[in-house]
């Protein structure tokens, strides 16, 4: 895996890139990102120090001086982390299953993962409300069976948020995992067995390490996407499940305090970039995404 990616493939130098006219094909994408992503991002970020005019760092000091905002920030990362772990725990066996069953069944499993993708996030979140609320399917069922005497508190809890978010984010975990796992030659497992490894240790010592790039790719994708959630925690969470995007939306949409809103966004973005940077030190993102995308 990483060894042949690192050693085998030589990286094209910038000069080599310029010499290759095919590389011009990347230009539209670069221009698109620069004009429609980078420029607005920079413009908006600037507002955090220029709105109001003499703002300077006041929007940032306002944020960091307030314990409540910090609690929400920490909570945001905590919920994103738990959602990521949940997705991994559910997604890993699922992706593995997809690689061992027949092509037709694997196709069905793939559709099962992708299906929720085709309905809106809002609809899926409302569906969870119907399932989880006090008068919802689960509680109604358990009450009717006489297993419980008063409804379980499922909705407006951290559990509700994690369930809803993990459900929505699961495809982002399963797809990179599957892409990597599919490329793992089953012969490796057989070779390990041949050399006397019991199935479990062949799995743990051969298959799992080979699948790690997929794990990292899936976790990073899910984690970063989870950081930006606000509809799901608003609808399924309780008092303590506020995420920072909810505060940002309120500042931007309702209060029109764009300076403070963008300051919060910049804080979130910077911390996310730092996490990505650290992750890129631990594993080579390029290899991770290279292997996930190549297939």
């Amino acid at each position: 895996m990483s060894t042949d990616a690192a050693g085998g493939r030589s990286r094209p130098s910038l000069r080599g890139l310029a010499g290759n006219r095919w590389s011009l094909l990347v230009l539209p994408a670069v221009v698109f990102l620069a004009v429609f992503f980078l420029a607005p991002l920079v413009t908006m970020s600037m507002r955090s120090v220029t709105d109001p005019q003499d703002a300077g760092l006041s929007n940032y000091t306002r944020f960091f001086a307030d314990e409540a905002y910090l609690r929400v920030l920490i909570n945001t990362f905590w919920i994103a982390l738990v959602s990521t772990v949940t997705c991994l725990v559910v997604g890993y066996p699922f992706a593995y299953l997809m690689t061992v069953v027949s092509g037709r069944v694997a196709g069905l499993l793939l559709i099962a993962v992708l299906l929720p993708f085709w309905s809106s996030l809002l609809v899926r979140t409302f569906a969870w409300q119907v399932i989880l609320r006090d008068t919802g399917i689960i509680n109604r069922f358990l009450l009717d069976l006489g297993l419980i005497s008063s409804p379980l508190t499922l909705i407006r809890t951290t559990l509700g948020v994690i369930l809803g978010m993990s459900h929505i984010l699961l495809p982002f975990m399963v797809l990179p995992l599957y892409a990597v796992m599919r490329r793992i030659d089953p012969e490796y497992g057989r070779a390990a067995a041949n050399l006397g490894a019991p199935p479990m240790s062949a799995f743990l010592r051969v298959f799992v390490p080979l699948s790690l790039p997929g794990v990292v790719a899936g976790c990073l994708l899910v984690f970063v996407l989870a950081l930006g959630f606000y509809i799901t925690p608003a609808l399924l969470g309780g008092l303590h499940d506020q995420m920072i995007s909810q505060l940002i939306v309120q500042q931007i949409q309702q209060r029109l305090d764009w300076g403070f809103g963008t300051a919060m966004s910049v804080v979130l973005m910077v911390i996310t970039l730092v996490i990505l940077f650290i992750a890129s030190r631990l594993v080579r993102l390029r290899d991770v995404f290279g292997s996930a995308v190549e297939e």
Partner: protein
Amino acid sequence: MRRWTTVAAFVALTSVMASCGGGGGGSASAAPPSVSGSIPAAPSEAASASAGGSAAASSAACNPPRQDGVKLTFASFGGVYQDAQRKAWLDPYSAATGVEFTNDENSSNATIKAQVEAGQVTWDVVDVGNDFGLDANKDLIEPLDYALIPRDEVLDGFAGDYRVADITYGVVLGYNTDKTAGKVPAGWADFFDLQKFPGKRGLWDYSEGGILEFALMADGVKPADLYKPSLDVARATKKLDTIKDNIVFWSSGAESQELIGSGEVAMTMIWNGRAWSAKNTDKKPVEIQWNQQIVTADYLVVPKGSPNKDAAMKFIAYTICAANNAKPSSYIPYGPTNKNAKPDPAKVADLSVSNADENSGYFDDTYLIDNFKDIDAAYQAWKTK
């Protein structure tokens, strides 16, 4: 360097995905809140007070000239609400004047700001909540033309230099009669009384939507004293602590309607139109306690730089004029703002203004907008504590 390139590419990828996934946009946040400072006279007394001087303005407002070829874009909050406005005001206005309307259903303060700052104003008349249209927003909106709009016919406190209320509604206590076992909660004190009325409580998760005011009323503060000399947030949150474990927060009108209709909460703070729909459309056992309601409004504004400013003013005058102002009440239980307007008799009992009395409260919008930072910080601190 290369590492950063990869990081950047990853960020771009995820943000593109995030924006796709989050397609619901701001829809989780609520629709129309609203407001005003001083206390309007009850409409019944006010009806006789119509000033002679306004009669001329009023009749001109009610009878706009032909304006064939003029196009206006009207932005409001969509759904049955905007349908009511269309049927009551836009369609008849088009028929009378030839003005063609384009409807936008996603009114948002942020969009007005973005349009004005970019110099690309496409909205001409916008229906906004009570948290917008004050002096604090004067860079974003045009001063209204009160030579056309009959200001002195509007309920006291509901017409400002930059905005005029087009409909009134109430933030009320809604209760599920199945859950209160036939008992009627008398006001916000009962809302906070978990002994007398067990069950959960719905509240709008918005620091300036009424949650603090209702807590203060429950604690014995008179509606007229809510902001005198300042909103006592510490006292309000202390009162809220007494029911904190039983609170279910909602963030959209649809959600509040669902919560009270399904009985997940026994009582909720709710906009009167939503409680009405729970009872009459969804056929749920939901009733309104009008006592200690907060009477508030939605407002019409004209974004600064609207290319059709003059036509927009004529249209606003038409909606405010006594003959037209109450017409939406035929379609939705939202009341007039013009003291002389006569609501649909079938709906009078369901309107906030008809049920306004000395116990009713009114938001002080100017105070709230000026003190938002402190109020919201204290609210967030309480909530996340």
